[in-house]
């Protein structure tokens, strides 16, 4: 069995000859101050060729670009119903005053055209700063790929990220990926990855067994996970690009919940190799140089490193009688409880900036919901409510989005949302899908 692998096309991106000087007029946005997002108009890209494939590619491109920008956070997309009438393919079609008029009131406009033929497609894409008096063109790029759905998607993601990087005050995540566990035959769980928007899902394993708890290496090249393939669960590592396995020496006992150190050199995990219960250990990422970090009666599991400093590890322990989140120094010292208010607190996920911990909290004996604990203020903010059980939060590398698993549809599926709890979207449908792990930015 083989599978199509990630990007099935050639990509060439060249600056358009007509592009204005590299730096457009200084672009200032309000997003860094936490005010309303920059307003951007995104009229549909136009077809510049009669090739029959163009219409389908155009539809995909237009949808993906809109969704990417709409979902970025920090941008406000002006509704297309407010746009001037007409088709907007090239610079000659844009009259800035029509787009800055009170009815539309856009600061930026993204527009362009698509051409397909002879197996390839080419997108001419521009971003204009409508309020600039000169050097209006902030981006002028021609992107090329083969004429596939994936090609159209890829170019849309690429252009969206370029826009987000430039004007939203954040960094674009449209080219990131989410690893997760998919159960499409009852009792069989395989490791999958998908694009950040749920498209292009594919299996990395065909073990016909159970795998759980995927974790990305910081360079995005490897995924560590729990595998029951050999009976007693242990940790396996696969390369994302070619499925190559790496050896992780089995410590013995039920071994699970791997987590990479921020420098990628070590893995923290839980194992019952000592007999009575799970303890947190750390080892080199090949499983050698094993060191025990926790010594407590009860379960110690689900370690995660502070990705900013690598100096602390958060984990779940029931040493107090119920599962709670604790933080210790990376050597296992100075253990302190994070959430004091009771219930069950699990699934700690450290934000990329190290300032916050997302977690799943079951306050009474009901459903879990996703919360964020601010490490500076100690404040807990609830992100989900009244929609099934919501668990396993994972941060996007921009620190502005979170994916999680939820039972709200009756099956377990993966959803994502902006950090304020808005724009919740369902990413998976087939079977049951759990344990999302959002990648970092790929190099």
């Amino acid at each position, binding site marked *: 069995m083989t599978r199509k692998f990630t990007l099935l096309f050639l990509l060439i991106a060249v600056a358009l000859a007509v592009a204005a000087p590299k730096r457009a007029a200084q672009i200032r946005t309000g997003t860094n101050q936490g005010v309303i997002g920059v307003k951007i108009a995104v009229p549909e890209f136009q077809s510049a060729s009669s090739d029959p494939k163009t219409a389908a590619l155009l539809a995909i491109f237009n949808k993906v670009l809109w969704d990417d920008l709409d979902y970025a956070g920090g941008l406000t997309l002006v509704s297309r119903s407010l746009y001037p009438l007409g088709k907007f393919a090239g610079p000659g079609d844009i009259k800035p005053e029509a787009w800055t008029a009170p009815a539309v009131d856009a600061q930026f406009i993204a527009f362009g055209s698509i051409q397909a033929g002879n197996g390839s497609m080419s997108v001419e894409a521009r971003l204009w700063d409508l309020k600039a008096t000169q050097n209006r063109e902030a981006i002028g790029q021609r992107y090329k790929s083969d004429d596939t759905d994936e090609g159209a998607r890829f170019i849309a993601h690429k252009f969206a990220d370029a826009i987000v990087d430039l004007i939203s005050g954040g960094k674009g995540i449209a080219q990131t990926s989410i690893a997760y566990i998919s159960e499409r035959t009852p009792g069989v769980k395989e490791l999958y990855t998908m694009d950040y928007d749920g498209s292009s899902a594919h299996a990395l394993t065909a073990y016909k067994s159970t795998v759980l708890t995927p974790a990305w290496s910081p360079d995005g090249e490897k995924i560590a996970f729990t595998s029951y393939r050999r009976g007693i669960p242990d940790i396996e590592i696969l390369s994302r690009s070619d499925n190559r396995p790496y050896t992780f020496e089995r410590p013995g006992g039920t071994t699970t919940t791997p987590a990479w150190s921020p420098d990628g050199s070590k893995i923290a995990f839980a194992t019952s190799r000592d007999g009575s219960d799970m303890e947190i250990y750390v080892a080199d990422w090949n499983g050698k140089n094993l060191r025990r970090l926790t010594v407590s009666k009860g379960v110690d599991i689900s370690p995660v490193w502070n990705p900013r400093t690598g100096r602390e590890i958060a984990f779940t322990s029931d040493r107090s009688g119920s*599962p709670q989140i604790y933080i210790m120094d990376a050597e296992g010292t100075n253990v302190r409880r994070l959430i004091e208010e009771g219930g069950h607190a699990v699934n700690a996920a450290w934000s990329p900036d190290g300032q916050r911990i997302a977690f799943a909290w079951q306050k009474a004996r009901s459903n*879990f919901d996703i919360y964020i604990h601010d490490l500076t203020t100690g404040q807990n903010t609830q992100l989900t409510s009244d929609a099934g059980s919501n668990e396993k939060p994972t941060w996007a590398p921009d620190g502005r989005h979170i994916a999680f698993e939820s039972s709200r549809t009756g099956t377990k599926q993966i959803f994502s949302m902006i950090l304020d709890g808005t724009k919740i979207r369902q990413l998976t449908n087939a079977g049951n899908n759990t344990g999302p792990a959002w990648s970092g930015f790929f190099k």
Partner: protein
Amino acid sequence: MRLTHMKSVLLALFLFGMLFLVGCGGKKTAAAPTPPPPVTPPPAAPAPAITLRAEPATIERGGSTTLTWEARNAGSVTITPELGTVSVTGNRAVTPGSSVTYTATATGPGGTASDIARVTVNVPAASTTPVEPPRRPDVSSGGLAQNVSDVLFDYDKADLRPEMVDVLKKNASWLKTNANVRFTIEGYCDDRGSEEYNLGLGDRRANVVKEFLVAQGVAANRINTVSYGEERPLCREETEECFAKNRRAHFAQMN
């Protein structure tokens, strides 16, 4: 068509003339209106151009693809990774082990130009054969399955309930008389707690049972433990009755 072309040529000439005039205008302050010297600027070196293609763009692992490149106005061409400096125009078969993007850079007096070609390598999903040993059906009438019972637990607990201590004592006596039987204790949970914590809880349940049996005189080296957490439940309904069945330690014969 031709007319349009003529128009463009005329327009170009006109623009050129305008530039010329503007250029002269800038020299208005010059004392003598000397005619401009007939200078022909040295022709700028033409910019290099290069195309790089991979055919086919998608291969199976172990297969090969052919890179073809063609450069103009270039003195040298470099292709990375792997190929290095190559002739200005050429082709070569490559067999990348994983998906890769080749970059061809042409360098000439007029600057540099580059093009890229991505080759996608289809790789088989890791190990299509499960190496997990098949569960050995235990059908012999006098076997472990008929004589050793599951141990059930309370919600979120790994402590032995009093009636389960009696169950375990019976299990221990059978296991001691059948000293050649090696077995795995599998710990399970209902699916209400969190998945990861339940892996730890199932592990505790299995180990609590193991410790009890060892204390009763069953040799520890006959016993393996494994936690399934909330995986592979006995019962898949969301009812209290079902939850209770799933919170268990189960015995599976290894030999």
